[in-house]
């Protein structure tokens, strides 16, 4: 499948932890200003895969990335590429909200300072909180500790601090899995609003969420090698979301989305 302006192109991408191949053979293009969902059963390597896009796998000493991943035609894993710069362009929101144990203002300001965007700090912080649909709830309590916010507010704060450093892409690793349905709906609404300006990749194991939210869906599954007792995540099918959910081509995709396994 191809799109006009892919932001990412992966070519036979894989990750291994020591001797264990967690994902392998991922070839896909990620479209600009679209939401791409990665779905699949537990252990299929969705989270491992999304962490390749901003080089977060670098933090795990045993992890080794194989194949290629091109960001706007630039290979992200060349030795001369600085992962710090990559992560400023490609932001990430995690499964469990992880605000810093500091004030709301400082949470957003940290990324700005780290990236040298220290001009008009208060305006930048306000702007980021507005884009993350959090400003009205916190504008009077910017000095309050971020840990006193609710889980949903904390997650939107994490989105705000990611937006503040003006990224190009936002990676979301099951951003709503720790939240209640109302907070989840707010995160989904937010993602929809943000896709005009950002390219979004979201990992989810909630199929309805992928169907509601995304433009493209990639279905991954686990290939089990019984003789070697190894489990490797592979990409089964990648297409427009409507197609994946109404006319899946692969019987494994169909089995998963109709709830027969996974």
């Amino acid at each position, binding site marked *: 499948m191809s799109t006009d302006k892919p932001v990412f192109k992966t070519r036979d991408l894989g990750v291994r932890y020591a001797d264990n191949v967690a994902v392998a053979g991922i070839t896909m293009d990620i479209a600009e200003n679209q939401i791409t969902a990665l779905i699949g059963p537990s252990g299929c390597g969705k989270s491992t895969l999304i962490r390749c896009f901003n080089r*977060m796998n670098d933090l795990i000493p045993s992890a080794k990335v194989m194949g290629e991943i091109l960001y706007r035609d630039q290979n992200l894993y060349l030795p001369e590429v600085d992962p*710090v*710069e990559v*992560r*400023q362009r490609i932001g990430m929101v995690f499964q469990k909200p992880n605000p810093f144990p500091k004030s709301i203002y400082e949470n957003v300001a940290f990324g700005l300072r*780290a*990236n040298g965007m220290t001009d008009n700090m208060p305006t930048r912080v306000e702007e980021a909180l507005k884009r993350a649909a959090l400003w009205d709830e916190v504008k009077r309590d910017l000095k309050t500790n971020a840990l006193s916010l609710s889980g949903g507010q904390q997650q939107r704060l994490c989105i705000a*601090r990611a937006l503040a450093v003006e990224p190009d892409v936002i990676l979301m690793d099951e951003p709503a899995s720790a939240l209640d349905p109302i907070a989840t709906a707010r995160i989904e609404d937010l993602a929809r609003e943000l896709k005009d300006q950002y390219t979004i990749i979201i990992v989810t194991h909630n199929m309805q969420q992928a169907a509601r939210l995304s433009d493209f869906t990639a279905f991954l599954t686990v290939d089990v090698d019984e003789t070697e007792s190894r489990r490797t995540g592979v990409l089964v099918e990648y297409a427009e979301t409507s197609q994946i959910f109404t006319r899946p081509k692969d019987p494994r995709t169909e089995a998963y989305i109709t709830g027969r396994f996974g």
Partner: protein
Amino acid sequence: MRPALSAGSRKGRLSETLFVGALLLAVLIGVAALAALVISVLSQGIPRLSIEFLTSLPSRFAEKAGARPAIFGTLWIISVCTLFSVPVGIGAAIYLEEFAKKGRLSTLIDVNIANLAGVPSIIYGLLGLALFVRMFAMGRSVLAGGLTLGLLVLPVIVIVGREALRAVPSSIREGALALGATKWQTISRQVLPVALPSFMTGVILAISRAIGETAPLIAMGALTYVTFVPKALGDRFTALPIQIFNWTSRPQAEFLDTAAAGIVVLLVVLLTMNTAAVLLRHRFEKVPRS
């Protein structure tokens, strides 16, 4: 008919009572020993305690003897010890915990630091004598004494520093790095502030242990009878525990009261430091934890 409720349960309760009683006894033994020590020291030392005692120089007459040089000596060496061991210890802890590659070498260093923390303090005194007093020709000075105590507490500080860093959730590191922060920005602005309270508590407890150390200072040749107050890093010195040791070894019985007064002063210094540790910890822990 169902059996009566109380059947069989009394035996269980009796053994529980005995068990709790044994535990209480264990607590009381510790508390009683401490209470006996404090009461005997206070009853002996308080009458002898006065402004003159704090401000006078030692004397061969028990009623005139004061602890001023020892108090200042202790303050001097503890300052040197802290200024040396805290920055070096925290630096080593950060390197080992955040930067060093995990491998055979780092395991070897781990084991060695743990072992160093268990080396008897008098060995550090001999090390201080050979290294600082002789090799670096510092003489038996405040500087040499402070550095010797610094070496003594350094392994403990490295260990508490690493534990404090390890207790910081990795989600904080990931969150900062994912924003395009460098490793150093992540550590200095997010990880260290979170680790600081437990680190400081460990440091203050380690330093207060150093205050009570006598053996390494005697081994490196600190003075036992000093009639002047150290004024510079190169001056010779004595310290409170040495002064107390000196008084208790005098033949005259009156010096035992003087020693008790010295112990009270040392205890007050230690309690003040430990209280400071608790207060500092509280101040930094105002942050709610999720």
